[in-house]
């Protein structure tokens, strides 16, 4: 069994409990223990209004340092948390000035300079488990199902810092869909913005964006859409006006591995 430090983030504790629960149970079935650190705080995604840029990164560094102290890679699943934590890790390992100021402020036992390896859950499936191995553990394959992967804006960009996949022509989610027995649907809007937080201020604008995504997927014959992001899921489900079902990718993973009923109880 491989043990990784697991960072769920705030939304997975509240609105997106499914994303979290299925991620944990599936990982266990795939031979990976996800261990949550005893105390963790916001990923830093909520601090974007801070005037000092270093201040927005402090909590992410605390998380990264916790993983470092445990001596394990860090796995995240929410697109937004992943984006903030991985970018912070990238910046602090390259920007000496920033590392100096942040370490001065945090007064850690040992300064943190980007030592932790950060995986998105999908990367863990690809690089640690391997999609071929995953395919062999699938008991309920999504045979004949046309599944559209929705990447959104945060999962892959900025591509240098996230270093996960080609931001314009990604394949990681499509490969995941193939591994669980489904047929991936390539559609143009799969990496466009869902509308994001604009939904709080201008619902019509968010509806336009998420509508375009869902129409594009529907036009290419998708039966369902999967995503890794709680906010995307919200916009696509509630704002798009489309009846096409939207799921977290972890939900399909759990179902494919035969774990879903157990979780629904």
């Amino acid at each position, binding site marked *: 069994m491989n043990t990784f430090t697991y960072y769920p983030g705030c939304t997975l504790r509240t609105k997106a409990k499914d994303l979290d629960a299925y991620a944990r149970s599936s990982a266990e079935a795939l031979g990976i223990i996800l261990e949550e650190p005893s105390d963790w705080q916001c990923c830093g995604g909520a601090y974007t209004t801070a005037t000092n840029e270093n201040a927005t990164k402090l909590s992410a560094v605390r998380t990264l340092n916790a993983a470092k102290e445990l001596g394990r890679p860090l796995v995240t699943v929410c697109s937004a948390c992943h984006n903030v934590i991985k970018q912070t890790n990238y910046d602090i390992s390259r920007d000496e000035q920033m590392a100096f100021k942040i370490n001065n402020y945090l007064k850690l036992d040992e300064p943190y300079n980007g030592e932790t390896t950060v995986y998105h859950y999908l990367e863990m499936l690809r690089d640690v488990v391997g999609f071929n191995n995953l395919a062999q553990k699938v008991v309920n394959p999504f045979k004949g199902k046309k599944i559209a992967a929705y990447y959104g804006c945060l999962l892959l960009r900025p591509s240098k810092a996230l270093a996960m996949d*080609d931001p314009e*022509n990604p394949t990681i989610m499509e490969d995941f869909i193939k591994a669980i027995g489904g047929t991936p649907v*390539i*559609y*143009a*809007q799969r990496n466009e913005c869902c509308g994001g937080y604009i939904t709080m201020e201008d619902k019509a604008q968010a509806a336009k964006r998420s509508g*375009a995504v869902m129409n*594009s997927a529907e*036009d290419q014959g998708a039966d369902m859409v999967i995503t890794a992001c709680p906010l995307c899921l919200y916009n696509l489900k509630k704002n798009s006006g489309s009846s096409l079902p939207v799921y977290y990718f972890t939900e399909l993973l759990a179902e494919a591995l035969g774990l879903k009923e157990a979780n629904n109880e």
Partner: protein
Amino acid sequence: MQRIGVFVCHCGTNIAATVDVKAVAEALGHEPGVVISREYQYMCSESGQNLVKDAIKEHNLSGVVICSCSPRMHENTFRKAAAAAGLNPYLVEIANIREQCSWIHKDIATATEKAVILGRAAIAKVHLNAPLTAGESPVVKRALVIGGGIAGIQTALDIAEAGFEVDIVEKEPTIGGKMAQIDKTFPTLDCAACILTPKMVECSQNEKIHIHSFSEVTDVKGFVGNFSVTIKKKARYVDETKCTGCGLCTEKCPMKNVPNEFNMGLDNRRAVYIPFAQAVPKVATIDPNYCMMLKTGKCGVCSKVCSVGAIDYKQQDKFIEEKYGAIVVATGFNPIKLDKYEEFAYSQSPDVVTSLELERLMNAAGPNGGTLLRPSDKTHPHTIVFVQCVGSRCDDSKGKPYCSKICCMYTAKHAMLIREKYPDTEVYVFYIDVRTPGKNFDEFYRRAVEQYNVHYVKGMVGKVTPKSDGKLDVQASDLLANEQLHIDADMVVLAAAIEPDKTARPLATMLTTQMDTNDFFTEAHPKLRPVESATAGIFLSGACQGPKDIPETVAQASAAAAKAIGLLCKNSITCNPCVAHSNELMCNGCSSCEKVCPYGAITYQDKEFRMPDRTTAIRRVASVNPAVCQGCGACTVACPSGAMDLNGFSNSQIMAEVDAICK
């Protein structure tokens, strides 16, 4: 005792700005054997050369060291000057204190110190130089042109015109290349076929030109003036000498669904086919991947309908070997694959096409007989968006870093032709920059904008989304208006970057020529020797050397021909005397040198030797053919007993240089 002259060049400020030239000349003047040490502003100038010549005569010099630029630049200049003054040219050594010293250092003290050391090494070497005499080798009066596109055709015609035999090797069943697929040509809009096909016919009718179509070069041996080339004539299952090109077999073949590569897969051909009506040679070819007879042994229709009995299902690949004095590479280009540019929905919609596909869609001999129709539903498109620089000028690893050069002009051509023929069609062109230098080129582009009202928009297309109503939503930015645009288009045309043909790289290895990181062949000098490769006797024609349009390609093709003719005119060429030789007394016949020789210059012979006890023994020893040896030195390093040595770069000379540097 040696009498050595040292001459240190300022090269204007190229050397003098970072190297104290006077101090170098002064220091080297005290080296053993040096009788005169001078510096001069431009040693390569006539008065600089006179300085060297006069010193040779006046001081009766036995060796010369020039501290200047790279020997690639002026070694020949100074060798000639020495020869003119009566000194054997191979008694001249160059110490490179420009490229390897002044240009790469900033600190004057260190650069000066290094220049002195480099000069000292050259002096140590020249002490051991021996006079060498260059031999001569005959020139085979026949040229090989690899690639039968417009570049290869023009080169072959020019060489034949000068009276020399030329062979064209073309990998496709016909010559003609990309130009044969093009509809109209910029900036005059004359039909490509009308100007190309007469040249193709001329090639087939010229008795000096021999076309090996459906053939590939598989091996190249030898050297300038005397290349030995193996050509593979791929089995086309049709006897070229019997086939009349009547085309009956191509009409009767029951395999109708073979993607037609000449029309970019936009329609189908049969398993037995002639690529297009004006093909040269006009001979049918059977595609073994689709032919039922070849795959299952059942069919034979083409054989039955052929009145001259040209079909031969048992035909095999044939290898022929031919000798050539010169080789011209004209392997051309291809548009890149677009699988990394899925944001333009190329694989998602048949109405997203490449520019070369559009050429076929607009060509009278194309799949729609020249009427521009959407591939998806064969309707007339009313809005067409062109995207420039797809894969060109990319700063990431996905595309090419260079400008493909031809796209701005052919896109202007497409836009203009569409507006001319279908005035009700709106045409948008998205560009980063419009680059149209060239005679009558910018005028041509301005005509597209001003007379034909093509909408040129500065900005890139970010996303093409195929919609359920069959339209394509083109999302783009207009950088000048600072606006986001959405255009409902019927078709999108992608100006895909061009790259060298895939056959170029293995060919470069066979020819021992150089390529750049993009697989374009490297010319011997970017400004002064643009059509020669760095390997003697290999010339470059057309887009294999870099992106080029037709006028430029033809100009370069003729230039390459002129260079090849210049070589073929000579009865013999001077050989490089700096070749390897084997000391038979030390050679133990182990074959190590033969294995590493890239030119096949080393053979073995059994020789009689007198042994110390007065008996005779027969031993197997290496011998080098000086006409074939290129002096690369690989054998001298491989030889375990130290029997192999290189004239002009002997082991003792190299060690003397190293000792001088480490002193």
